[in-house]
């Protein structure tokens, strides 16, 4: 049903991953318990759950911004640190985190600078990515001259600038209004389909997760764990009408009930 190119190459493989913050009986917080998850090339995976379920923590473990306490986590068959050093992923944070002192174009060029692309190559790529997020004309503006939604699009362009095969997104649209968020969802799907990137997307919005993803990973807190993995099973390309289809509502309700069940345990 899905027209999206997808093969069975394993991008992420987590086996029995645990993450414990703090030490000593009283101060220990089990952020993640026994996480087992395989993500394949070209998938769009959403991690969803209430706050404290460890969805952001899991993303940070994959990004090697945190280390797992126990368990085995592989990115493209490598340990996370090696994957980070090889620049296997691009990351988009909850806040746009643009550098005030750089123009929009120079912000997008930042990862390319770090990876020692030539100046002309950087310019071409940054412009291409800005055009992809429909900000081609804003290359010479400073971040503060843009709205929140536009800044977040710059952050996406920056994450994609070196064309990573894996895109990690930590509630990237959480701070946006509903209308902008829906438009950004459409743009993200378009980008995903053009670039054939694997996406791992953290969100707390059920409709957003269903609309975007091939699979939704449902998580629950105390201790943070995976309670279910739902195949969205909706055809691509997804359009505005997708949100009105009975199948979409069915899936939204299914995830909502799973989250509620986990909460009432």
């Amino acid at each position, binding site marked *: 049903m899905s027209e999206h190119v997808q093969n069975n190459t394993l991008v992420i493989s987590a086996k029995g991953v645990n993450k414990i913050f703090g030490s000593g009986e009283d101060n220990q917080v089990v952020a993640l318990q026994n996480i087992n998850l395989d993500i394949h090339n070209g998938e769009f995976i959403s991690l969803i759950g209430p706050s404290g379920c460890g969805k952001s923590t899991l993303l940070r473990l994959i*990004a090697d*911004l945190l280390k797992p306490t126990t368990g085995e986590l592989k990115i493209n068959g490598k340990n996370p640190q090696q994957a*980070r*050093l090889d*620049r296997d*992923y691009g*990351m988009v*944070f909850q*806040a746009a*985190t643009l*550098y*005030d*002192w750089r123009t929009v174009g120079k912000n997008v060029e*930042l*990862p390319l*600078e*770090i*990876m020692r692309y030539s100046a002309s190559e950087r310019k071409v790529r940054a412009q291409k990515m800005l055009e992809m997020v429909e900000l081609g004309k804003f290359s010479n*503006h*400073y971040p*503060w*001259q*843009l*709205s929140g*939604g*536009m800044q977040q699009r710059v952050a996406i362009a920056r994450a994609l600038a070196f064309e990573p095969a894996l895109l990690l997104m930590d509630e990237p649209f959480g701070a946006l209004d509903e209308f902008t968020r829906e438009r950004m969802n459409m743009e993200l799907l378009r980008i995903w389909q053009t670039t054939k990137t694997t996406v791992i997307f953290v969100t707390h919005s059920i409709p957003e997760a269903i609309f975007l993803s091939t699979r939704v990973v449902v998580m629950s807190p105390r201790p943070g764990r995976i309670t279910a993995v739902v195949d969205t099973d909706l055809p691509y390309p997804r359009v505005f009408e997708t949100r009105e289809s009975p199948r979409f509502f069915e899936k939204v309700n299914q995830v909502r009930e799973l989250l509620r069940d986990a909460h009432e345990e």
Partner: protein
Amino acid sequence: MAEITKTPSLTWGENIKGQVSYYFPTIMIAVAFLALWEVAVRVLNIQQFLLPKPSDIAARFLEETQILLSGGSSLLYQAAGATLWSAFGGFVLGCGSGILLALITARWTIISEAAMPFAIAANSVPIIAFAPIMNNWFGLTNPASKMAIVAIIVFFPTMINTVRGLTLIDPRQLELMESYAASPFKTLFALRIPNALPYIFSALRVASSLSVIGAIVSEFFGGPRATLGVFITQAASGFDFDRAWSAILMAALIGIGFYLTVTIIERRVMPWHTSFRQTE
């Protein structure tokens, strides 16, 4: 996409008009203050040695300026040049080494953490008290003795502020660099230094005023005749208060000029900074 904040592009005429109306209240206060001073001295018949009239001070100042312009040698302007040189030399030495040392220590957090309490303590020592010692070390008439005092005075605030700017960084911005596996060197130049610029410039603005104060006060402890500090002391002890005040006016002009220069450079170097944004 109409969410753009427009930067207003003003014409020259509009710009000047805007500037004048912006500074008008300030100018009026200055004029009123000088007028009140002048009237008070005349009406209350205040003695010249207590407070000379602003008009007398201005006359003395213009007299010296005329001597300079007609090619003569004006002691006031020679003194101004010498004091400015001491202040500027000390400023460059002190701020330069402050920034440099901050860059080195911030690389090794342990060193900067160990050095910071010391620097903060040293910053609250009245360094001007060392002026006679410096005169002994470098020689009374050697500008190096004044530069040394100025350099020490401006060193600590500059270093402290620079270390703060290099280390007080939004953790998310650091995480971004980490996610790109950026080298510490690249993080320093692409993130830490630009982040520190507003801190450095606020230190430099304070240092610009401190350096003129430091130079003049250390000259009070002795120095060549052609320095503002010695000029003021000698004029005052000779009861020539118009002359003393004309040198004070000169010192004020140097201080203001120095401060403005730093501010102008600051705007050039970081036009992106919040304080310079035009959002209306």
